[in-house]
């Protein structure tokens, strides 16, 4: 396939347009690395469960009354953030502000409920390798939620300042991508700690 | 490769190490051949060099596309695959032969790795035939001995090069190894997983002997402590119980602790301090007085006995054959 030797004279975006920018790739690599971190945390869970003796899981039937609604809350917040991003794309600033604002509040609520969830646990950090790993995994996730809500807050403020347009919006797309990541990872953590024990893992 | 290198494993003396040896030689020879051949190709190629200088001489030699040369890679891979495949199959066959622990071992030992010594328990079939010793394992020649490995503190690795490859002793799990000596002799095994300051001085001695000799040793180990025979050893016995009994055991006496090595029949052992010193009354005295000077970092405190006290303790311990 012969290529022309000179560069064709098409107009190129200057700086990031839409998702087309190195920053988008940067957040992609960050997400990949963070996903790996959680993969190792879950690997550790299954490794302990497979090699430890019976009753390694301290809660064979974890209480879902709070955890399940809280999970749904977090996943729903992803949808709300996405709706906010659509607002930026369609130049509906009010929709964008509502979207990021509500997603922020939902994220904060999730984090608070998670703190409450920790207090109700019948074990503490140093009880056993199970409890240590539970608190480390959910704790690292909680830290990611903190970062995520900070980002949502920043996007909210920047949107309020009218920094974005449908074309200049890399920060919005990158921030919302990060928030999706935080939520999807929780689905894996939740499944591991709250669902697999019901399936008989680690008893 | 002979007795001059007590840990060399290219002259194996046990079934398990024997089984690995041909594969080791095969891989070693293939490896050396590969290095020689590659070195030879390299040197020959270099002899065709155009210039022996710097930037100007590089520039002076014209660039050419030359032949594609990918057949070198293709042929190279094809040729290398053969010894690799042989190695792979041989590895699997050898692994199957040596990994499985013996179904009906003649003897079962529990070996516990401690910082920095080996605790050895013989599991006699009647419970009365169970006893514990340290840093020295006696086995009958030609019989398979199952070794169950446990970790007391940190990870160590049990290895008797001339008899068997390494298996780690890991806290919280029991690993299996086995020994079978082909020839009588004394085989040394160093700890081979780094375990702290005195990793260098954590040797186990495996004494492979005829069945008759082994039975005699075994019977001797089952004997209780030898009672003091004179006033010196009597004083020594009392001192031992008082000063050493908090950590050590001599079966059949008041000294019954397990923090340090079991010292029943200590005088019959070949070495002290996990292979650090030959076992003589003199080295024993030196060890008791200056364990930290001889093996820095180890957990036995210097005893600061008076000269007389030391003589008494030695007199008592030397009775424990």
């Amino acid at each position, binding site marked *: 396939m012969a290529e022309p030797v000179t560069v064709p004279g098409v107009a190129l975006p200057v700086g990031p347009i839409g998702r087309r920018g190195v920053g988008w790739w940067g957040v992609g690599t960050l997400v990949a690395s963070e996903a790996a971190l959680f993969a190792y945390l879950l690997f550790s869970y299954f490794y302990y469960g497979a090699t430890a003796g019976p009753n390694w899981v301290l809660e064979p039937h974890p209480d879902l009354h709070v955890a399940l609604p809280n999970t749904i809350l977090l996943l729903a917040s992803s949808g709300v953030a996405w709706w906010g991003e659509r607002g930026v794309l369609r130049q509906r600033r009010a929709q964008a502000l509502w979207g990021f604002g509500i997603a922020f509040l939902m994220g904060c609520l999730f984090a608070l409920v998670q703190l409450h969830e920790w207090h109700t646990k019948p074990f503490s950090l140093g009880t056993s390798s199970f409890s240590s790993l539970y608190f480390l995994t959910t704790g690292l996730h909680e830290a990611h939620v903190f970062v995520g809500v900070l980002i949502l807050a920043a996007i909210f403020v920047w949107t309020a300042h009218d920094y974005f347009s449908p074309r200049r919006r890399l920060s919005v797309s990158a921030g919302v991508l990060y928030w999706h990541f935080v939520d999807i990872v929780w689905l894996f953590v939740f499944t591991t700690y709250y669902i697999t024990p019901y399936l008989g893992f680690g008893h | 490769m002979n007795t001059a290198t007590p840990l060399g494993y290219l002259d194996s003396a046990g079934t398990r190490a024997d089984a690995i040896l041909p594969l080791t030689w095969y891989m070693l020879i293939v490896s050396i051949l590969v290095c020689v051949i590659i070195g030879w190709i390299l040197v020959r190629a270099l002899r065709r060099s*155009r210039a022996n200088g710097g930037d100007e001489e590089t520039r002076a030699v014209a660039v050419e596309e030359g032949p594609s040369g990918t057949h070198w890679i293709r042929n190279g891979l094809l040729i290398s695959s053969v010894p690799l495949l042989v190695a792979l199959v041989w590895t699997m066959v050898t692994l199957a032969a040596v990994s499985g622990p013996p179904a009906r071992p003649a003897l079962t030992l529990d070996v516990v790795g401690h910082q920095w010594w080996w605790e050895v328990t013989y599991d006699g079939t009647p419970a009365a035939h169970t006893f514990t010793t340290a840093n020295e394992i006696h086995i009958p020649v030609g019989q398979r001995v199952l070794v169950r490995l446990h970790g007391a503190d940190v990870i160590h690795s049990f290895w008797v090069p001339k008899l068997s490859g390494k298996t780690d002793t890991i806290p919280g799990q029991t690993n299996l190894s086995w020994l079978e000596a082909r020839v009588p002799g004394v085989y040394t095994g160093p700890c081979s997983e780094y375990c702290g300051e005195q990793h260098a001085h954590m040797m186990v001695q495996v004494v492979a002997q005829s069945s008759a000799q082994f039975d005699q040793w075994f019977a001797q180990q089952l004997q209780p402590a030898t009672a003091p025979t004179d006033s010196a050893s009597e004083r020594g016995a009392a001192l031992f119980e008082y000063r050493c009994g908090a950590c050590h055991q001599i079966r059949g006496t008041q000294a019954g602790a397990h923090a340090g090595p079991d010292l029943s029949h200590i005088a019959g052992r070949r070495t002290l301090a996990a292979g650090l010193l030959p076992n003589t009354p003199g080295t024993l005295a030196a060890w008791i007085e200056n364990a930290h000077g001889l093996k820095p970092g180890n957990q036995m405190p210097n005893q600061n006995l008076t000269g007389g006290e030391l003589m008494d303790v030695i007199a008592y311990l030397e009775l424990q054959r």
Partner: protein
Amino acid sequence: MKSADLRIPVVGADSIAHQSRLLELWEGKPGLAGFFGSVDHKHIGVRYIVTAFVFLVLGGLEALAMRLQLAGPDRALLTPAQYDQLFSTHGMTMIFLYASPVLSGFSNYLWPLLLGSRDMAFPRLNAFGYWVYLASGIFLYVGFLTGNGPNDGWFNYVPYASAAYNPGLNEDFYSLGMVFLGISTSVGAANFIVTAFRTRAPGMSLDRLPILVWGTLTASVANLIVVPAVSLAFLMLWMDRQFGTQFFNTVGGGQPLLWQHLFWIFGHPWVYAIVLPAMGMVSDGLPVFCRRPLVGYSLVAVSTVATMILGFGVWVHHMFATGLPGIGMSFFSAASIAITLPSAVAVFAWLATIRLGKPVITTAFLFFASMILLFVIGGVSGFMTASVPVDWQLTDTYFVVAHLHYVLIGINVFPVVGAIYFWFPKMRGRLLDEKLGRWNFWTMFIGFNLCFLPMHLTGLLGMPRRVYTYAPEMGWTTLNLITSIGAFVFAIGVLLLFVNIARSWSKGKIASANPWDAPTLEWSVSSPPPPYNFALIPKVASRHPLWEGRLPAPERSSLDRGLLLDSGKETIGSTALDAHADMILEMPEDSLAPLFLSLGLAGAFAGLILKLWVVTAIFGVVLAMALLWWLWPRRALREREPAHG
């Protein structure tokens, strides 16, 4: 639609006016602020290399102290505790603070020049990565110099590393320092990945990338995925030590072997990460002196990636003696033997390149060519340890010590020194002395083999690694003496390199833009390159832009006409696979933010080691705010757009 955020880049020829305009845009500020704020990849690259060499010297001195101790039996030059910290710190230094950063340094310096770009994708992140590397290196060495260096080997097995057996600060320094350093490695890896995929000159498609780019790209993808494993392991260890968690404590249901899994899931790919870029240097450098293209370019590129993919599946071969089930071990054994094949591709490609080329012997060439032999020796000993039963005898003896030094020195240090001879003229504008270079090479080569070849035999004679002394009756005395002598000869060889650099720094022969008549883009710009690298972003039409016309090629690259891009600090962004011009990237100005951010991180880690949680918390908040400020969208961007109705 024509608007301020879309522009047709101007294609033109070079001119003095254009160059001075670019210089104005790209030249850093003078003075301290300019020095500490520089985000120029060339400065950062050289800083990485120099810092890595400082650590190489420190690690080398530690090695010499150990070789004095081991020169004869029962020597008491060092106490066991000192020896343990020395060998652990030596390993940590060489593997984490030298081997990987030095390659990051070369790649940082060279990548934009090889790819036809004006900088890395994230220049400030690049500076940040360097400062974090420096800070974490200092952090770890503060531990060592206060008697709190690591003392459990570089792979730091638990439970010996846990508080019960290791109560000092040693392991706290090591754990926190490694988490700290991991940040640098991760951001560096991310930067390389994005740079490789997004900032290549038009036409620099994947099949035209220099192998060094393939090597570093592969290593970076691996690092991005595996560094979290070791950071997590060290975090768990630190929590066990600090907060009584039970990750590795068997009493609380912990698993010492989990450490080994997490460590080696990281550790083995890491080994490839610190050799693949160096193999890339050889693949790119050797053909220059053989006066022909590399044999089997595509196969070598593919095998680079294949090595790493297989490399993810061989970590258990470090754990053959841990009592794992036989089936699992057979799989890992087979994978470890199979990984020989992709490595062999490179060896045969290099041999064929020399054999079918017209080799010109230079010092750089000698280092590259000798590496082939050292690579093979390190490779075959690795092949031996891949066989489970054989490994049961070989592992944790000096055989493995010999193996890993052939790998790390043979496949990292030799190519790196070759790379210095090769690229120093580009970096400094002066050639290193060839005559001294010969002395340099032969002293290093002979010293190295004198030191490490006998070590294989020492291992076969059963000497375990990590022993601080040995008894005379073990039969290892002569071999150890030879090794110690070899170590000092090798050290003299390395010293000769420094002498050569010092002498040539200002007195060396002036280098032209392309002193070796090499084919790749970095040689198309002056030596040393201008701050903006390329006055014109070239259009690349082959793997060997500077050899076109001499090699059969359907098209010619365009080097004297290209994108001017002088409306601001700009370079070209391109599509990931084919490298079509895709967008104009606006590059950041110099900034002190990376330095301050890494100082903030250092403060947070200092708080952790001193157990002053408040300090850490304060630094944490400051860091979060600084990051927000860093990422604050530039309003200017928005304002350039025409108002929407």
